[in-house]
């Protein structure tokens, strides 16, 4: 199968991975409350995650195109008879500034995708119209006629459209079936119907439109079921979920929240949860990078990503933790070969196991090898990249644009200067660099005991490493707090309010895929007060007014 199941990373962060220096502006660009910003480039960038509104807003009605991943999962779930039997590709989705592949303003069907959807539909239709047809459509073994085709539509059309087809729609598809089956045969007719259904706008877009009632668009039961399914499992609603919605069982915010919570801990739900963290933090990209100076890295990078996934599973799911736990958890999940690579005590067995980190060897997500390796150069650590991660993803401070004239980042000088000294000389002394780098390099110095592949080091090229530094205020004129190592950096962040404001903003942006901010305020305060876990806050977004209603801007 040619589709890509690559994990997503954070485009906003990854867009900065080439950042060697930045412009002179020290202003944090904050848009007007809740409005979209063009960030100076003319490209719509989405809501400002950290914007706080107190009360939840309601966004506009919209059609949300399914992402590539959602389309593939949908087809696998609706056509299990041919799962693995067809092969087609969909090109990579456009990524928002926040790193998410589900931004409803960016996901459109252009010419390339239209052609790919046609090919995809053809592949699924061809596979289905072969031997599996007897299982998928039992009447095809006895009566190969339009009535049987109508049964196909009733079953699969409803799944793909997430609602029953209207009589007009049915008539059109039956007419297509008859034209094709007359020219060819019954199976080809079903194949063409499948092909058309797969690329239909009613399948490709999920509706968050509703019906206008007294100035507000009230989403229908089917739309609510669809929203629940895709937001919290990344795939089509099951017939049971659709039926529950139609029966009025999801009519209240409480019912929606409960259902969301239930869906989040399914396998599909956990996949959606993990995708958030990968998109937000970018650790998954480690699987595709090389480190020429560390030959064994290629054989371990996938294990590093696996380690982080197991860590997240424990913290976020098993322990139902929140941001504090994510930042300060004292354990990780290395394989024995990874444990050896990191210099941890030898692990028993051959599987990855929950391992307490040795003292002074980091805590929480910021010490994960996958993250450290992703946020480094090929041959050296990068205080800039690591500092920008914290600044952008945990403090929601918008990095300034790169200026046209970017001074040289000369190569590391092992044995002569440490990476930190190298960065401090160039970025701190050159006024053109200092204006921006003073905002994030000091944060990144807290990671300096970890090399480009996430291994702990006391020395770099024979020279002692220092991670004593601080998190600057937004304007870099003062210290928000000081730290001496990565553990203190992580704990310090966990004690600040801003990371919780920022993280909750990213969570709601991820779920809603909308350009408006402040859609998930009801429980946001509780999350900010560290009284709500990731899963509980995510589920609470189903109870928000925006989940059930829309208003025209």
């Amino acid at each position: 199968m040619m589709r890509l199941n690559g994990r997503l990373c954070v485009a906003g962060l990854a867009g900065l991975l080439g950042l060697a220096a930045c412009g002179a502006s020290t202003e944090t660009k904050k848009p007007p409350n809740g409005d979209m910003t063009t960030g100076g480039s003319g490209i719509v960038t989405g809501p400002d995650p950290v914007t706080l509104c107190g009360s939840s807003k309601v966004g506009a009605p919209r059609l949300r195109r399914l992402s590539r991943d959602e389309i593939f999962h949908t087809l696998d779930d609706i056509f299990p008879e041919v799962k693995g039997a067809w092969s087609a590709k969909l090109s990579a989705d456009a990524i928002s500034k926040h790193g998410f592949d589900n931004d409803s303003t960016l996901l459109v069907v252009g010419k390339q995708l239209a052609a790919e959807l046609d090919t995809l539909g053809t592949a699924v239709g061809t596979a289905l119209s072969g031997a599996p047809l007897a299982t998928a459509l039992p009447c095809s073994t006895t009566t190969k006629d339009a009535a049987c085709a109508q049964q196909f539509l009733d079953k699969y059309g409803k799944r793909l459209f997430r609602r029953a087809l209207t009589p007009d729609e049915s008539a059109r598809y039956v007419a297509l079936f008859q034209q094709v089956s007359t020219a060819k045969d019954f199976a080809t007719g079903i194949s063409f119907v499948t092909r058309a259904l797969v690329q239909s706008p009613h399948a490709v877009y999920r509706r968050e439109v509703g019906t206008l009632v007294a100035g507000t668009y009230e989403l229908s039961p089917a739309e609510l079921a669809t929203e629940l399914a895709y937001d919290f499992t990344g795939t089509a609603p099951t017939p049971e979920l659709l039926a529950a919605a139609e029966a009025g069982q999801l009519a209240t915010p409480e019912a929606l929240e409960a259902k969301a919570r239930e869906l989040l801990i399914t396998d599909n739900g956990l996949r959606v949860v993990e995708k958030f963290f990968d998109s937000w933090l970018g650790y998954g990209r480690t699987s595709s990078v090389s480190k020429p100076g560390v030959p064994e890295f290629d054989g371990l990078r996938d294990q590093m990503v696996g380690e982080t996934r197991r860590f997240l599973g424990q913290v976020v799911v098993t322990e139902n933790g929140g941001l504090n736990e994510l930042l300060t958890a004292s354990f990780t999940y290395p394989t024995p070969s990874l444990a050896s690579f990191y210099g941890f005590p030898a692990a028993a067995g051959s599987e990855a196991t929950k391992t307490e980190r040795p003292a002074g060897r980091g805590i929480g997500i910021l010490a994960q090898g996958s993250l450290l390796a992703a946020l480094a150069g090929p041959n050296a650590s990068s205080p800039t990249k690591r500092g920008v991660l914290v600044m952008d993803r945990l403090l929601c401070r918008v990095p300034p644009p790169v200026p046209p004239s970017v001074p040289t980042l000369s190569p590391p000088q092992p044995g002569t200067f440490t990476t930190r000294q190298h960065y401090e000389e160039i970025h701190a002394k050159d006024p053109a660099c200092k204006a921006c780098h003073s905002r994030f390099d000091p944060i990144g110095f807290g990671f300096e005991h970890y090399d480009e592949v996430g291994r702990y080091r006391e020395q770099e090229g024979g020279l002692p490493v220092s991670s004593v530094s601080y998190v600057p205020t937004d304007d870099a004129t003062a210290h928000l707090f000081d730290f001496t190592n990565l553990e203190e950096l992580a704990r310090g962040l966990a004690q600040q309010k801003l990371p919780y404001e920022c993280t909750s903003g990213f969570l709601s942006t991820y779920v809603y895929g909308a350009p408006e901010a402040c859609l998930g305020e009801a429980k946001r305060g509780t999350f900010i007060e560290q009284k709500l876990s990731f899963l509980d806050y995510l589920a609470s977004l189903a109870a928000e007014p925006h989940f059930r209603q829309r208003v025209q801007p």
Partner: protein
Amino acid sequence: MGHSNASLRVRRRVFLSALGLGLTAAAAARLSRVALAQATPASKRFLLFYMPHGAPPEHFRPQVMADDPTAFSLNESGVSILGPLQADLKSYTTVVQGLKYPKGAMTHEAIVVALSGVSGGESLPADDVPRVTLEHQIAAGLNVKPLILGACAHRPFGLDKDGKLMWDGTPVVPEKNPLAAYDSVFAGLGQGTTPAPGPDPNIALTDALHSLTEAELQGLQQELKALTGEQTKLKTHLEAVQALKASGSGAGVVSCDKAPTLAAVDALRAAAAGQPDEFFLKEENFPKLLAAQLQLAGAALRCNARQVVAVQPMYTNCEFDFGFMGTSGAHHSVLSHTQPQQNPYPQVGLDVKVREKFASCQRWFIEQLLTHALTPLLEPDPADPGKKVIDNTIVYVMSEIGEGAYHPTATTKIQPGPSEPVLSYLPSVIIGGGGGALKSGQVVTFAQDRPAGDVYLSLCQAMGVTGTFPDATGAVKEVLV
């Protein structure tokens, strides 16, 4: 693009005659294809090659002798990034100097408008502003489907602005898997299939299918007409489906009678066997992927299996370490930001070679292009006896910025060292005869910057199609016959 009825009759007549003479079906089919190729004027081909992050001008610009723009060397500019073209392709090469990208395009972000000429005024246009880049305009004009290839053309997790080089209304994602692309281009070639007489009956059925989708979109547009925010989305989708209905098969008259053997593709197929799809995203595979993509590009053009091909090796600020070609360091952050002679460590001496290192990386791109894609085009054109494929081809090499120290998107004076200042021009290199439409073997320099769209207009004209580039002021007559 289907064959014309006249062409099909030629092919059918030759096929039946060959059978009548006792030839096997396979041999008769081969003969008929050759006959069809010879009956059809040689088609022009187009190849776009994107070289990310510009080129240090002192290592790129041709040395022009005695102010004669036709007397120049590509091999006497320091590292000589264009030097690989000197021996066999200099006479086919035109270097254009003095271009600018649209207003608002700055630094790497210029990639999103560099090939379309669309401006957003003081800034870049929003993503929902439609645009069509050069290679897609040429393909549309020829009614063929372009072959868009990339080695690591965007970040592994998706398409962000740093990878949005090519557009067809909306951004186009290059095919990153050379094996899939090869199979798609050369599927069935040389397997002895005989041409079917008459129109393909599936076309009518496919049309009916797409008409159904079209009607659904129109219905949605009507139903949701109060939602102005969604109308643009539906309009884009509708136009895409309508284009699908009208689109051609993608190929011209294929002049090869069997699928070509491409060493880089075969090697990649062996290396990728049993590997997950993520194999095609891995940094260490980049050189193999690019070699395969370029060999495929050259073969597709030589065989006329695709008339329009584009290759995007990387996204703008890709950080791949180029140690594989002998220059260690991340392409973007370590190598490409090449301000001269900056040295904060006087005790270790000046690193005067920093720009040479990056220039050697960029020269590697040109070497790859030459070795894998351009050398096959020096072979005879099967459809045009006496001519080489390159005589009927236009290759265009460009970048999104002038060079890496100042990231200019127009001509800029820089000081690369203790010698005289030099002008950094946007890389713009035309290679090929264009079927007799191009004047080659020259350096064209404009005293005042002209929009890059002027060159694109010229290339469209040379390809026999009409192009539209909002920044253009007129074709560059100096490059056209």
